[in-house]
């Protein structure tokens, strides 16, 4: 009996110390969500402006840019998957990866050959464990992405999609998709798949109209006619890659906020579970202790009775 009591006490102690780790993680994640949400907000003015400028430009330029037009030359589609670097985030990575599998299935049905680009160590290990080829991986910034990280990813993707004239080689993919987790609220994060390139001009104009003031339209209701410096086509050339990078950056920020929210929730239920486990264990330990005492008493009483009855026989 004494052995089981000791074992129980040891389990209680270890449960309590893991609980401490969980609740520390929960607090860190909670603080990160707030910061991540602030960064999402801070990045919005730029995203809004660049969408507006591009939308104005798209209605003026010849729209012959490779980043705007659908094509089917290579039969390959790049898919960028945004996962986290660390675990402890509940179903966050599983959901993103499941959404990715769905997208890959759809692409294959359309006769396209998907090429994977992975952000985050979790996604990297997922695919390398399954021996699936991954074109390129980016790790180390999933929780706090900087714009330079988005630029690095953007460069690789634009390089395969629209290498530019001076690169001396042609594009190797027809489309670029991104799968990331959208931060809806603290309780709900939804994995979504979007097409990054070619840029959907209709979506662009819709986004622009959504941004309230409808600055693409003059006071009289006619579209503003802009002067361009340099020419619209040259502007489009330099703006489109930046737009794609901005989209990637926005996705990274959303994903970072979702990751923290998801981690906080997972850590909250883990620490709740640990607490309950510790409670049950200490109940068992108390019972074991009580049983031990009862047994000792009955042994003493039994012994004394035996002595008394032995004395009476004399």
């Amino acid at each position, binding site marked *: 009996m004494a052995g089981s009591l000791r074992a129980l006490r040891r389990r209680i102690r270890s449960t309590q110390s893991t609980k401490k780790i969980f609740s520390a993680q929960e607090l860190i994640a909670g603080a990160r969500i707030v910061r991540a949400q602030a*960064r999402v907000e*801070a*990045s919005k*003015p*730029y995203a809004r*402006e*660049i969408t*507006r*400028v591009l939308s*104005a*430009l798209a209605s003026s330029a010849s729209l012959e840019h490779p980043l705007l037009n659908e094509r089917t030359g290579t039969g390959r589609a790049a898919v960028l998957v945004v996962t986290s670097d660390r675990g402890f985030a509940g179903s966050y990575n599983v959901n993103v990866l499941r959404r990715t599998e769905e997208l890959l299935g759809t692409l294959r049905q359309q006769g396209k050959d998907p090429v994977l680009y992975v952000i985050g160590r979790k996604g990297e290990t997922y695919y390398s464990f399954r021996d699936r080829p991954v074109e390129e991986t980016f790790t180390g910034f999933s929780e706090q992405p*900087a*714009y330079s990280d988005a*630029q690095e990813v953007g460069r690789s993707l634009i390089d395969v999609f629209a290498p530019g004239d001076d690169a001396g080689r042609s594009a190797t993919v027809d489309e670029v998709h991104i799968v990331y987790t959208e931060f809806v609220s603290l309780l709900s994060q939804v994995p979504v798949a979007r097409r990054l390139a070619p840029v959907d001009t209709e979506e662009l104009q819709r986004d622009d109209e959504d941004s309230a*003031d409808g*600055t693409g339209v*003059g*006071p009289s209701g006619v579209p*503003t*006619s*802009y*002067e*361009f*410096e*340099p020419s619209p086509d*040259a*502007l489009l050339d*330099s*703006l489109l890659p*930046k737009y794609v990078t*901005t989209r990637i*950056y926005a996705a990274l920020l959303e994903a970072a906020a979702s990751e923290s929210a998801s981690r906080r929730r997972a850590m909250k239920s883990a620490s709740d579970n640990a607490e309950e486990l510790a409670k049950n264990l200490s109940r068992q330990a108390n019972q074991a202790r009580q049983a031990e005492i009862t047994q000792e008493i009955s042994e003493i009483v039994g012994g004394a009775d035996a002595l008394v009855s032995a004395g009476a026989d004399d």
Partner: protein
Amino acid sequence: MATLQVELVAVEKTIWSGEASMVIARTTEGEIGVLPGHAPLLGELAPGGVVTIRSTEGPDVVVAAHGGFLSVTPQGVSILAENAEISSDIDVERAREALRRAESAGDDPESLAAARRAQSRLRAAGQAV
């Protein structure tokens, strides 16, 4: 007096916003000064360029803006930049160091861009380059 509503936004945050009487910038085509009532315009800022905003309240705002666009609409002027720094925040010594490093690093596009960024920072800080 008519004024311009100016917004200077970098990718990670809005850097400056307010009223101004004039915005001076350099696009890839040349210097441009924007006064209130300017025709709608979209321009690409020259690499390594400096944007000056004549603020109506307080002194001129001089900004090192790299990889950016200028958009003039009837509502105002917005300057979009991948990297932007207000002159008062620029550390001249560090910018010089960055320029030296970038120039000695060679001719690849990466270090050329770094050199231009450092140059624009120095110019915005009022240093000769």
